[in-house]
């Protein structure tokens, strides 16, 4: 049949386009520095189950967690039906899984109830974004027109997809009733709405059924290919990102090994700096641009949901400083796509092309200064609140620290007060200007003997 053939072509094209986009994103992420992260697979899997599948960190805020949970479960479960839709589409069958009997009925019933709840959740989300304007979702220089539009596009698409699903089910039910057939499956919500189509004749019903069906599946293909340009990419990226996230205590910052070798060679001239394997560059001191960050830090950037939970708890941000950890992550993604490739046909993430940037960046074509200003970086207290808050285990602080390192080590551009602190440590072994010989003065007048 012609329509089956068309469907097959569309499916192949949609999947192919998606793979093409994923390859581009892969190349972008590979711009990053190599870093081996493969230890402790079982602990990582455990985290994956809890944080990514289990949405553990969402529950810090119960209401959004419940609503998001509905959309998430709805997404996963309804997509089981996708198997059936694709099979039906290619082979011209009708509800091919219907032979599952009661299992199929249960599946359809759950689908309908979830689809209904998804619509409600999406409506509430739209209200939160556009009417009550929850601050973390709407404010901040990084929340540009595209980010806001993106969120709305996704929510409306989901509602439309669910409506298409209902249209298909209702028309199908009605047609079955007219021809006195038993339709496989159980449809609590469509059953309830079925009389809405009472005035439709058979051909109209058939039209509704096929439009609903095509709309649903084409919508899903479009959604799939829209993902890589959207914050909604997190529905895929959250899994690898959580898997590869840091297992050590949050207070442990990375050690730069090239510096260790340099110091050791300085202290001991006979020290042999290990030679690096062919093609591996020695690690720079800090990060100026995306290729100085690790691939994991770039993966972070593609995982960000732009939810603003990090910025919302950032002490620097809510006391009016310029720093917003979400902006650091979004800047990283934007710069990566400027430098590397943009995955989609359109270029949504290039904010330099979207009017005046709202922080004082320079014309430099680098992440540091071209996107992120030193003022933002110096406002960070390294408190880890952002890292703790992020539902998809992004490590905003590590990227901030790498850029700070570059400012200090490569450009000697630390604030004056911090340079004074460095000098104190060098000269007195303490960050303050005290004489090292006073280090034991606290023990004076104490009954302890100096040991």
């Amino acid at each position, binding site marked *: 049949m012609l329509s089956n053939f068309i469907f097959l072509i569309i499916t192949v094209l949609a999947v192919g386009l998606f793979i093409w986009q994923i390859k581009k994103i892969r190349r972008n992420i590979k711009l990053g520095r190599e870093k081996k992260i493969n230890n402790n697979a079982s602990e990582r899997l455990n985290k994956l189950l809890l944080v990514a599948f289990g949405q553990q960190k969402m529950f810090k805020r119960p209401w959004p967690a419940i609503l998001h949970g509905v959309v998430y479960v709805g997404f996963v479960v309804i997509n089981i039906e996708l198997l059936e839709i694709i099979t039906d589409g290619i082979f011209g069958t009708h509800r091919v899984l219907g032979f599952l009997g009661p299992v199929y009925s249960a599946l359809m019933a759950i689908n309908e109830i979830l689809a209904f709840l998804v619509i409600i959740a999406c409506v509430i989300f739209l209200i939160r974004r556009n009417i009550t304007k929850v601050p973390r979702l709407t404010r901040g220089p990084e929340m540009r027109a595209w980010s806001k539009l993106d969120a709305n596009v996704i929510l409306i698409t989901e509602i439309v997809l669910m409506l298409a699903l209902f249209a298909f089910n209702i028309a199908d039910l009605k047609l079955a009733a007219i021809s006195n057939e038993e339709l496989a499956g159980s449809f609590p919500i469509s059953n309830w709405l079925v009389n809405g189509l009472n005035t439709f004749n058979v051909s109209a019903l058939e039209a509704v059924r096929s439009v609903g069906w095509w709309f649903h599946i084409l919508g899903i293909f479009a959604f799939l290919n829209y993902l890589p340009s959207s914050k909604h990419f997190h529905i895929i990226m959250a899994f690898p990102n959580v898997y590869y996230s840091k297992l*050590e205590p949050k207070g442990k910052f990375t050690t730069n090994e090239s510096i260790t070798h340099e110091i050791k060679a300085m202290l001991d001239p006979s020290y042999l700096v290990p030679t690096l394997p062919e093609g591996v560059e020695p690690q720079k001191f800090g990060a100026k641009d995306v290729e100085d960050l690790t691939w994991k830090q770039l993966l972070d950037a593609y995982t960000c949901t732009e939810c603003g939970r990090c910025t919302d708890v950032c002490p620097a941000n809510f006391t009016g400083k310029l720093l917003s950890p979400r902006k650091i992550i979004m800047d990283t993604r934007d710069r990566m796509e400027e430098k590397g490739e943009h995955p989609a046909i359109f270029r949504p993430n290039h904010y330099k092309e979207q009017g005046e940037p709202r922080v004082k960046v320079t014309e430099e074509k680098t992440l540091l200064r071209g996107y992120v200003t030193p003022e933002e970086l110096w406002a960070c207290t390294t408190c880890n609140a952002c890292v703790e808050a992020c539902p998809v285990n992004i490590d905003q602080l590590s990227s901030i620290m790498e850029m700070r390192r570059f400012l200090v080590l490569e450009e000697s551009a630390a604030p004056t007060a911090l340079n004074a602190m460095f000098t104190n440590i060098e000269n007195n072994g303490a960050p303050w200007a005290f004489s090292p010989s006073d280090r034991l003065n606290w023990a004076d007048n104490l009954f302890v003997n100096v040991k």
Partner: protein
Amino acid sequence: MADLMAKGEEPEILFWVGCAGAFDDRYKNVTRAFVRILEHVGIKYAVLGLEESCTGDPAKRAGNEFLFQMQALTNIEVLNGYNIKKIITACPHCFNTIKNEYPSLGGNYEVIHHSTFLQQLINEGKVRVAGGEAFKGKRITFHDSCYLGRANGIYEAPREVLATLDADLVEMKRSRANGLCCGAGGAQMWKEPEPGNKDINIERTEEALATGATVIASACPFCLTMLSDGVKNKNQEDQVKVFDIAELIASAENLNA
């Protein structure tokens, strides 16, 4: 430490005093209070004295990895030279740095923060807080240090220590994993804040004052300074005091000189 070594003795633990513990006038009281507790329980301890130097934490958080590693490698040489196995410190920054960041540079020790240590002493019955009466009915709120709490997951130990005081322990709106920074971390202690509309320590102090507590307990020298400044800024220094948990235990034990 050098003296002990000369006598051929080895201490059970090394008390890492830290720069604030050694130099900050207010915080020296905490060092003394903690040492009194150590003496009281009769543990064999030592300090490095003049051989101690900054762990390098402020340099590292400020981005000066080079200076950090210089400090770390020098300290590790001293510590390994004395064959140190176990280190105790009252400063969460020293704690975090030595525990988490020294191993990859060759310094492997068992590192304990004084809150955990005090909790152990209390659990073992070595500190009984006989004079706990002094705190009866007093309202105390505990401020989580970022480098103790989120950075290393220690939330309960300091609270359990405070619980022995028989005081009325109240929590601030943001506490434990959601705790709010005092504003000093990440080397902010040594610089002016970036332009904004409020200082972080004022925000945190307001939250602490809102609990109605008359004692704000902390377990970090920088938090202690930031919150004391905040309380002064609010002209509450006569009604509200900021103490380290070691000071509170020492005074409950009547160990204060």
